[in-house]
């Protein structure tokens, strides 16, 4: 159950202005909805660096290690002895190590994005409105009931086309 207020904006600069005002006023935590990525908006929100890269690094290292390990271990386990050639040869096994690094690294990146974004999301977000994927911007301010009026005034002043209670 979401509380607080949700506002629709038609213009990008209006939503950027509202974000700045909300940060100053500290009326509550807020979420910004945008139909696409705008660096201008991203800079105004200033959310910091995504942690997805940690999943990428760990996944890539695990994948590469597994690729080398499985090829070396199986070669030692069932040796194919050909002349004086190495039983476990790291040069061709680099192909396996590389492919597994890409496979596990990329999939763990996606997994990390899912975890950090909380998707797949099966609960409907009451603050979300269909126009937010179409052409409108939105802000949901999660505030206590006694601060809702202040938040509504602030959002209207910034240029919100519509402000409602998020319930």
């Amino acid at each position, binding site marked *: 159950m979401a509380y607080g207020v949700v506002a629709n904006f038609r213009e990008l600069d209006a939503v950027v202005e509202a974000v700045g005002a909300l940060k100053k006023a500290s009326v509550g935590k807020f979420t910004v909805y945008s139909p*696409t990525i705008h660096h201008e908006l*991203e800079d105004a929100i200033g959310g910091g660096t*995504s*942690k997805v890269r940690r999943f990428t690094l760990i996944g890539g290292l695990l994948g590469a290690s597994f690729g080398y390990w499985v090829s070396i271990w199986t070669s030692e386990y069932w040796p194919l002895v050909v002349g004086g050639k190495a039983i476990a040869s790291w040069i061709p096994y680099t192909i396996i190590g590389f492919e597994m690094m*890409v496979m596990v690294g990329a999939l763990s990146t996606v997994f990390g994005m899912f975890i950090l*974004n909380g998707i797949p999301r099966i609960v409907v977000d009451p603050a979300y409105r269909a126009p937010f994927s*179409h052409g409108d911007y939105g802000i949901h301010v999660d505030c206590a009931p006694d601060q809702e009026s202040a938040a509504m005034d602030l959002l209207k002043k910034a240029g919100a086309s519509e402000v409602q209670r998020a319930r």
Partner: protein
Amino acid sequence: MATLAQPVKGPMRPNIASADIQLPAVRDFEQVDNEIAATLGPSKGWFLGLALSVAAMLVGAGAWTYQIYDGLGHAGYVPPVMWGVYIITFVFWVGIGHAGTLISAILYLFRAGFRTTIYRVSEAMTVFAVMTAGLFPIIHIGRPWKFFWLIPYPNWRLLWSNFKSPLVWDVFAISTYLTISTTFLYIGLIPDIAVLRDREQNPTRRLILSILSLGWRNTDVEWRNFTKAYLFLAAFSTPLVLSVHSVVSFDFAMALTPGWHATIFPPYFVAGAIFSGFAMVWTIAIPMRKWWRLEHYITLNHLDATAKVVLFTSLVVGSAYLIEFFIAWYSGVEVEQSYFWNRVFGQWWWSAWIMLICNMALPMSLWSQKLRRNPTWLFILSIFINIGMWYERFVIVVPSLSHEFEPWQWTNYLPSWVDVAFIIGSFGWFFMWFLLFVRQLPVMAIMEIKEIVPARRKHAAVHGHGGAH
């Protein structure tokens, strides 16, 4: 996330640098949603195309059933030519699959603006081309039900696959490529599926789209993580796309067969793959922009930019052909010299000249700006390049095996009707998936196009080109 360079200063010149491509005829986000969603409507042409594709696919399926029932002898192999149409067509489709990831990942990292409106269709093409390619080694082994022996899995006989074999490298490279290409395609689609979900009136379709969009809400946190994940996927896909065709080239280069044992094979194969992949993008995108009236998204500037890539890769491939002849002469190895003479002036002259004309001569027309900006010529050229690149693989596979070290082994090769049926079937299979895709999901990245389109503002924009920069 769309790849944009600095805004264009002054009027747009026809031969504008690729990174400066803009969409002047697209005004706002609503127009983007409406026009791209309109491509999803059914039409008679779509049903006709699907019917033809399914019919072609059934030709291939019938041939496969017959071959499984009656044996691999129907494949037209003549010892020692034991690689034929199946391996040629496998390499051809893997090559087609390269342009998608090149456009979506490599051009993304290079901030090449012309990728934005063509990358979705190229990514889908990649996934379906690799799905098609993956069938051919399975068909080629004759007993497809034993394919899983190539995959390392714990078994009671304690047997493992030989990791020094190029065939096993292929399994790892192709399966990784298919997995990552599909993931890349799907991740890019999530915000666009959310757009379709929010527009959908039919409750069943809306439910399906809700599941596929994973509850995407366009929040700032979602976009931040999405952008980072997309960047890393592009960074992984870039070396991957270069490695896959290099690994495919090792299938040949690791053998001592004349014409195959060459160190230039990996870059030669990668350049050829990009060349043929871009040609297939034209084959698909040029009719598509006409039928759905998307000329203001895939503009002449986009086609011009892709034509320059094709021209460049044609020069690389052409250089590789010439270097092969030079090395054969310079090496002083008689077997190599005899093979290359036989390839161009002997038994296989006709196939070599189809390759040289289609891949080296005709693309030189792209030095002309007028032809680079002529969609009809680009479409015709794309067909020639597709044919030329299939023949390139024919020229690599067949003349080498039919003209090896021992003259008594020299032989001829002619594809059988079963081989031809598989080629027809592969095109049917590819276009069937592609047509099903374009009917259900957006052929252009709605979210990325919105990044290019100037956002609405209360006050006049200070940047002069919208909010995305």
